[in-house]
């Protein structure tokens, strides 16, 4: 009798441990696919908010989102014609991002920036600085970097900035309570 009970206990213990191991951690994983100002603002507000809630937060930048992390102060040479063209056509960093709607050739975005300032709303570059402070992790998709023809030397300085692939994101996302695609 005692032996079966002990065996059952051990079995239960093993099952609880397995469940605990599989339970999502207090993490948030966001895909930042869009390079639009409005969507990037949403991503960074959620990310800094999540960090404030005590959640471990990771932003995975891919495709158009990648250009948000270019450093306007840095320029690199040695690119082929296509990469140079792409680089010139895409916004050079967060300060150059435009609205996804009502941009009106830049006028709408300028109005939004003025409006945000008057309402004391943090700008995108300020939110990136805040994310740094709050230890929000950033991963940049390697494939997007090579597609857009971006070089690592032209990206912003960000502590712990990583270049990664889909598996890194999925591993993080699978262990997160919140996963969003922006």
């Amino acid at each position, binding site marked *: 009798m005692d032996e079966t009970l002990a065996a059952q206990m051990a079995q239960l213990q093993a099952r609880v441990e397995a469940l605990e191991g599989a339970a999502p951690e207090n993490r948030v994983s966001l895909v930042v696919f869009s390079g639009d100002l409005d969507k990037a603002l949403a991503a960074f507000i959620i990310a800094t*908010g999540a*960090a404030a*809630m*005590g959640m471990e937060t990771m932003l995975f930048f891919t495709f158009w989102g990648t250009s948000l992390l270019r450093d306007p102060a840095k320029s690199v040479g040695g690119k082929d014609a296509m990469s140079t063209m792409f680089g010139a056509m895409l916004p050079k960093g967060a300060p150059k991002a435009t609205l996804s709607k009502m941009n009106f050739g830049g006028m709408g975005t300028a109005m939004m920036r003025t409006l945000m300032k008057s*309402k*004391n709303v*943090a700008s995108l570059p300020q939110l990136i600085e*805040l994310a740094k402070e709050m230890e929000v992790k950033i991963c940049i998709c390697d494939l997007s970097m090579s597609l857009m023809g971006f070089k690592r030397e032209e990206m912003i300085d960000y502590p712990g900035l990583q270049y990664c692939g889909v598996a890194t994101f999925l591993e993080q996302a699978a262990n997160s309570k919140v996963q969003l695609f922006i």
Partner: protein
Amino acid sequence: MSDGITIVKELDLRNLPCPMPVVKVSKAVKEIQVGQVLRATTTDPGALTDFPAWAKSTGNAILATEETGNETHFTIKRLK
């Protein structure tokens, strides 16, 4: 303040919109000891729902919420 609670820190979050109130309160609460109390004043209407959500998620307690005009005062006790 009421009930003999000692406020060890006053936090002025007026005129700060989302996400700054929760960001700043999360930082400030780490600067006081467990068991100590701070008071945060905000004008962000979203804080009325955001602060309780933040407290629930981080395991801290909101002892009191008082509204005066357009300002809201949160009395927050660090529990973790």
